[in-house]
């Protein structure tokens, strides 16, 4: 039945033939749409990369709830709050354990060229669970000796050939905030727009590196709940019971808190969205020009079809199909070029820019809307096809 219907309603692929009649124009059209697609892929890739990298560490934290200061704006501007607030949470039965964490930016000296660079440093008690990584606790034990640090091997190369030196069993010693530290291990966190590199150490070492930090003050409090507890409910209870100098968030809310900062409080999210919009507009103009000139060129032919008894609606469908085909052929090179460019950006910046399903579908929809919208505008020209004028 399906085959029968297909054969019955099969028609000459007029849209395809009209498009391919002038291969050079088709190539230009595809190049234009692909360029717009690549532009959108890159802009949205950077934007999402920014948002994703800004929460790389947030996602890895081994916690159900996170305590922060209400004055904290994001990981790049964290304020401290009293550590005792974290201890107070233990009064609640649902709270299983807690972990205080200090976080700030300190100057790292590249042991190779001795240049300094700002690095995000986290300080925690090595006996606590900081990250969800299974092998982390084994590495954390090494931090119990003072002056030991774990270096993020995904940090930008400007921090020095730390990974190479460490793997070649070379002693990696350098300065952080002017004080000597020894790299005892490597972790995988990844840089973000806010931090080019990350360093993890014990609170003891942290306070030695950053003595200005009050001993009783922490930037992040991690709370692990007992199994079966509802994080949202517990966070509400804690928010009501704790003083106003602390704010309790679920882990997801903490991730959103960070993302929202980059989305709403900086121009970066807006700039990348605007860049994607510009790609969209450029694509619209290119497709519209191509389809409009295609319709204009073929106006006598469309008029002939109208004279033969074809409905104007049928001709609209032809132009719409042209738009769809352009979207399809323009999208594929954009997708593959996007993959290659993402890989280049990943390798050179270490940013986790990936071609995820959301972006793949979103860009296809945007290109489709771009092509179909332009086809819709170009269709207005079809109304000018007067069959009476062809005699």
């Amino acid at each position, binding site marked *: 039945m399906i085959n029968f219907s297909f054969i019955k309603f099969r028609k000459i692929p007029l849209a395809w033939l009209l498009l391919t009649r002038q291969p050079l124009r088709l190539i230009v059209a595809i190049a234009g749409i692909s360029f717009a697609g690549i532009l959108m892929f890159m802009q949205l890739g950077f934007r999402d990369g920014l948002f994703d990298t800004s929460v790389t560490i947030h996602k890895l934290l081994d916690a159900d709830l996170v305590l922060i200061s209400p004055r904290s704006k994001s990981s790049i501007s964290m304020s401290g709050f009293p550590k005792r607030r974290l201890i107070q949470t233990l009064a609640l039965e649902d709270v299983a354990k807690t972990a205080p964490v200090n976080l700030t930016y300190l100057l790292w000296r590249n042991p190779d060229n001795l240049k300094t660079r700002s690095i995000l440093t986290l300080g925690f008690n090595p006996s606590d669970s900081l990250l969800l990584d299974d092998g982390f606790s084994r590495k954390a034990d090494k931090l119990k000796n003072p002056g030991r640090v774990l270096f993020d091997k995904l940090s930008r190369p400007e921090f020095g050939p730390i990974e190479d030196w460490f793997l070649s069993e070379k002693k990696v010693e350098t300065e952080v905030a002017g004080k000597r530290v020894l790299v005892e291990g490597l972790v995988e966190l990844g840089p973000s727009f806010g931090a080019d590199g990350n360093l993890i150490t014990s609170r003891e070492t942290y306070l030695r590196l950053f003595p200005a930090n009050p001993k009783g003050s922490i930037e992040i409090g991690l709370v692990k709940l007992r199994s079966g507890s509802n994080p949202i409910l517990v966070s509400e209870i804690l928010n009501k019971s704790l003083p106003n100098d602390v704010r309790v968030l679920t882990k997801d809310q903490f991730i959103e808190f960070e993302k929202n900062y980059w989305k709403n409080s900086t121009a970066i999210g807006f700039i990348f969205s605007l860049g994607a919009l510009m790609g969209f507009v450029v694509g619209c103009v290119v497709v519209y020009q191509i389809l409009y000139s295609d319709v204009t060129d073929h106006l006598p032919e469309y008029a*002939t079809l109208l004279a033969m008894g074809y409905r104007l609606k049928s001709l609209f469908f032809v132009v719409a199909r042209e738009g769809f085909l352009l979207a399809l052929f323009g999208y594929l090179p954009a997708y593959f070029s996007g993959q290659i460019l993402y890989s280049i950006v990943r390798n050179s910046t270490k940013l986790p820019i990936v071609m995820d399903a959301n972006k793949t579908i979103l860009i296809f929809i945007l290109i489709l809307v771009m092509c179909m919208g332009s086809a819709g505008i170009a269709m207005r020209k079809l109304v000018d096809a007067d069959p009476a004028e062809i*005699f």
Partner: protein
Amino acid sequence: MPKAVNKKDKNSKTVSINNLSHYYGNNENKKQVLNNVNFFIEKGELVLLKGPSGCGKTTLLTLIGALRTCQSGDLTVLNNQLNGASRKTRQKLRRNIGMIFQGHNLLRCLTAEQNVQMGADLITNLTYLQRRELARKWLSAVGLEDHHKKLPNGLSGGQKQRVAIARALSANPKLLLADEPTSALDSVTGREIVSLLRKLAKEQNCSVLMVTHDPRISDMADRILNMEDGRIFNALSELR
């Protein structure tokens, strides 16, 4: 002046026109191009319409072809009154009218066979393969079976006109309108084309109204209408 066409006559007539007038422009720029035109075309009849340039032949052809709205008078084509007819009615009627244009108007991106099939595609209840077969049959009928894969720019003027005829006939029209189909052809090819058109139209019981200046094909018509200043003369001349 001819008598008004009665209902009984209407069924035997493909086209029936009474007091048809048409104007272009508005107010002081208004110009009358058709002035009380009266004539009819019988089923299967081949009628030639002659007249000097600008006398209103093409306007008349486009009105009969349901390509323009009728302004004044009665115009009945295939039992459809076109005065006051909706756009949809005219569009549906056009499916029963084949048109052959002076400039062929073949779709440049389609092969000869595909061009003909665009006509056959208007027939409902036929599968794609049946419509393609029909297109091949008509291409064969106009002697172009060996050229079915050629694009229009690979065909001569005469061949293009044959494809145009095949396309017009492939939709099984009941009325064929042709606007100077032989003007760009040499005399031999011109006669061949009209002869072919006449033969195929007769086989289909299809009426033909052909605008032409070509005196070489006058002998092939059933009837010749002369037009001047928007009026038809000798509209009631006897069939050949």
